[in-house]
Structure formats: C-alpha cells, structure tokens
C-alpha cells in the first residue's frame, strides 16, 4: 500500500518531537484513552522543555511532569479523578518548576475548535468572571489570557479564548489503517477537533485494521488519512488507563504509578522499571504482565470491538506494512 504511514514508536518520536515543541496529546479524561506510551517514549528519548497542551491531565502528563520534561502546561483538569491528585504534576507546579495555565474542559475543546478553524479568537461565555479569566500563570509573557470582546449584535461583553495549534498531537485511537484513517471507540473528548488543530498528527492505535473496515464504516472514521503524518501500532498504548472496547483501567498500576511519582526517588525508580524497562512491544507487554494483559482485556466493553475484529491485521503481518522497512 503506497500510502502506508506505519512506523515504529521510537521512529515516530524521533521524527515528530523536539525539545521545546508545543505538544498535545490525549484530550481524554485521566483514566481514559490517551497515548500514554508516546509520553514514555518522549522521556526515553530525553525530550525537554515541552509546552504540553492536554485537554485534561492523564498519567502521561503526570509522568512527563515528574520526569522534568515539561516546562509549561495548559489544561482543563489536572487531577486523576478518583485516583486523586496527579502527584508528578502537582509537585512540579507547587515547586514552581512548571507553569500550569488553567482553563475549563469546555475551554480546551473550544480552543482546539478555534485552532482547527484558524480563528483569531473564540467566543468565551464560560470561564469569564472567574479567576480562570483573571489569573494567568503565563502573565509574564504579556499576552492577555481571556480578554473581553464585545458582541456586535447586542453590545454586551463576553470573553475571547486564544485558539490552540499545537506543533504535534499524538492521538490515541482504537483502530487505524496503515494510511492513517482512524476509529475511536468511546467518547472522543476533543480528539476530533485536536486532530484538525494540530500542525502534525501521529495516531497511536491499539490495533491495525484493513482499509476495508473503514470503507464499511466511513461514518466512524473521524480522523481521515489526509491529515495524518504517521501511524504507530501499540497495543495497550493507553495503559494503565482504559481503552473502551480494548482494555480496562489497571487500577493497581494507576495507584502504584501515582504513588511513585509523588517523590523523586519513586519517580527515578518508576522511570527505571516502567519507562526504560522494555526494548520493544513484547517487552512492554511482559512488563505489564501477560496475565494482567489478559485480565484487563476481558472488559465489559469488549463487545464494542466485535464488529471490527474480522479486519484486525494479525501482529505477525504488520512487519511487512511498515513504512520505514523500505
């Protein structure tokens, strides 16, 4: 297939990341779909000084912050839901190592929408009148955060959000073909808008499917190949978070990871074991534990993938589809 964009995770990070870039990922809530493994690879390759733009926090952002890879963050939610505060992120903010600019979850979706449309600003009818409008962690940069704008019809004043156009977005999807057409199962959060707002898009797919799957379900292909630079195949890419249809949250590792990231020593140990502790996909699944992989795969949501299983390309056939092999 001439349009093949399937490359390895390591290659994707080498080609589509650099120190200081504005990096977007996830766009999902803290326990759901996010390209967590892309963040692990960013740390493995030593990326620094990232300006992270996450719709909501996730273990990826928690890890990147703990590892000192991130200088600035913009997000709508910085916790881990019932798993509590994101300790790596929290520590980096409290010590002043990292500047976190706060918005709401709708604001982040709208800022991606505005970036996708390339608007100069986005109308804000929420976030105004609160400290989300009045306080800015980036105030030193001299750019207003949510300045007022006047509705020309009624004359009333609302706010204006700044649109986001991240340099690179690593987007977790459930299924992709090698050309980059992608299907997300579960809520999209703002992955649809983000995929258009970002200057470059890399999709990280739990499974690769034949393009016939996309032609059978074109309405599910919310990320078309024409906007995708590269496709990475990586099962359990969102681990320890969930991927609806594919696997459940690994509750035990969620707790272990967040506890580790609460201290420098814990972080060092976590990086050693869970970030540098594998060489390839096989090693990664060994690290999670084959038994746990099987248990997490027995999700109540598994039936959501059933209609697509016949098109999933067996892992042993994927090597031949790799773009870089040529």
């Amino acid at each position: 297939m001439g349009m093949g964009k399937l490359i390895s995770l390591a290659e994707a990070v080498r080609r589509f990341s650099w120190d200081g870039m504005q990096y977007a990922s996830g766009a999902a809530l803290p326990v759901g779909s996010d390209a967590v493994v892309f963040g692990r690879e960013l740390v493995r390759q030593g990326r620094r000084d990232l300006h992270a733009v996450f719709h909501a926090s996730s273990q990826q952002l928690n890890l990147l912050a703990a590892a000192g890879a991130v200088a600035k963050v913009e997000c709508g939610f910085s916790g881990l839901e019932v798993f509590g505060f994101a300790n790596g992120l929290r520590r980096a903010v409290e010590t002043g190592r990292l500047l976190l600019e706060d918005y709401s979850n709708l604001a982040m979706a709208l800022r991606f929408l505005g970036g996708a449309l390339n608007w100069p600003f986005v109308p804000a009818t929420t976030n105004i009148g609160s400290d989300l409008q009045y306080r800015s962690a980036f105030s030193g940069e001299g750019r207003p955060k949510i300045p007022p704008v006047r509705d020309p019809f009624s004359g009333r004043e609302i706010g204006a959000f700044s649109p986001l156009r991240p340099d690179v977005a690593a987007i977790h999807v459930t299924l992709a073909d090698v050309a980059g057409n992608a299907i997300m199962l579960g809520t999209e959060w703002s992955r649809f808008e983000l995929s258009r707002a970002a200057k470059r898009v890399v999709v990280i797919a739990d499974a690769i499917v034949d393009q016939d799957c996309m032609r059978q379900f074109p309405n599910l292909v919310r990320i078309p190949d024409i906007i995708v630079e590269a496709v990475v195949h990586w099962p359990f890419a969102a681990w320890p978070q969930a991927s609806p249809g594919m696997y459940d949250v690994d509750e035990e590792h969620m707790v272990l990871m967040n506890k580790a990231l609460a201290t420098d020593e814990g972080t060092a140990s976590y990086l050693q074991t869970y970030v540098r502790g594998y060489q390839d996909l096989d090693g990664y699944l060994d690290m999670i534990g084959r038994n746990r992989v099987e248990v997490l795969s027995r999700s109540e949501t598994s039936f959501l993938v059933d209609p697509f299983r016949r098109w999933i390309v067996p892992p042993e056939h994927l090597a031949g589809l790799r773009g870089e092999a040529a």
Partner: protein
Amino acid sequence: MSAAGYSRQEMMAIATGREIKDGELAIFGVGLSMLAGYFAKEHHAPNVRAMTEGGVFGATPVGGLPWGIECNRISANATSFTNALDALGFLVASGRCDVGIIGAAQVDRFGNVNTTGIWEGEIGADYRPPKTRLPGAGGANDIACGAKRTVIMVTHEPKRFAERVTYLTSPGYLDGGDSRDRFGFQGGGPSAIVTTLGILRPHPDTREFWLDSWYPFSSADEIRANTGWDLKAFDHAREVTEPSLAELAALRRVDQTGALRKEK
C-alpha cells in the same frame, strides 16, 4: 456508619439526589456526584436524562462506581458517545441542561467554588505557585456558568467554608446580589450547597447562602461551627427528612463498592 444506619456521606448523597427531578437533563461529574445522580435515577427520577462531560449518553454504570467519567464502567452500555464540545458546550454552556452537580475543595458565602489550589494568604497580583495544587476546573466552571441550576456537594469542614475563596474556579453568585448578571451566563447559579452536615440555600436578594436544613444527626449549631462565615438561617430552616429504607436501598444498589459507607 452512624447509629442511624447510614453514613454522613450517604445522607449527603441522598439529599443531593432529592434535588434532581424526573425528566431533567442532568450532568454528573465523577465520584460522589455521579453516585448522587444515579441514586436519583434509581429511586425517583427514572427518566432523568443523564450525561457525562465527555458525551456519554444513555448509560448506567456497571460494576460499581466508575473511576472516571470516560471509564469503561460507564462505556459498557451507552446509547451514544459524542464529545466534550457537545456535552459541555451544546448541552451545558448553552443553557439547555437543567441541573449539574459539582464538588468543591472550598466554597464561600456566595457559593463560589475553588478546586484549583490552596495558597497561604492572598495570592497577590502576580502568579505564584500554590501551596497545594488541586485538580482544577474540569467541567465544573462550564456547569456553574451554564446549567440552569447547580448543586454543590461538599464535606462540611471549617477550612472548606470560607468567607471568600482564595481562587475562584467556578462562579456562584460572585459578590452577591446581581453581580453575577453582568456576565450573561445562561445558568442561574447554585440552588443549594449540600454538605455532610446539612443544606444551605441562597437568600433570594443578597444571594448569600443561609442555613436551610440540618440532618437528623447534626444541628444548626454544629453547622455554624463548621462554617467560615457568619451563617444566617432562614425562618423556615428545619430538619431534613431521614432517608427512607427505599432511598437507602436504592443508593446502595448504585454504590456497589460502598464508597459512601466509609465514614469520613
């Protein structure tokens, strides 16, 4: 668990759930507010039209409390998955949603909520790091601005009930009176603060939160002692009706993992 056979948190969840009416379009956050919402659906509001911030529609959580609003436990039996722009924008910020339940780390006399951080003293004019970073706004700011009314659920402790929130994450009635009006929010503001000790409601003119009711196991005095402003009480303030057996049974069917039964 109290001698009454239910915990303070269970009472709070039931009191919150009673605020939800059948047929309403409602948005529930993660954790306790979701339990309160699904309790209402289970008990007296079977046709409540519930959604999550991420755009999960038509679902009832399976296997206990979801760990997150995008969790597989709430994705296993949805009828529709859309996105955050839809749920928080089209349906909430627009003013279409009837009621939202939000939590608070800190709440003040005008129902303003802080979930962003705790600072020592005033923050001051310029940015400085918080002593304790909290999870931020999430969708709560959008719900506080857009939902026709919001219910704030919060553990009743003096440190949480402040004269003025240090950081105003989600607007209540701002400085009280009509000060909220000039922002043109579609939503009407908080109709109640439901706590582990009782219920506060806004005075119709000043918008200051006054004591509306206490629980069988609490009292007006206990609530005043745990509130960081000079709490006034409505003339009609009274004791809340104790949870019925049917209510408790419904709540515990929803709270399969017993998250609320652990006394805090």
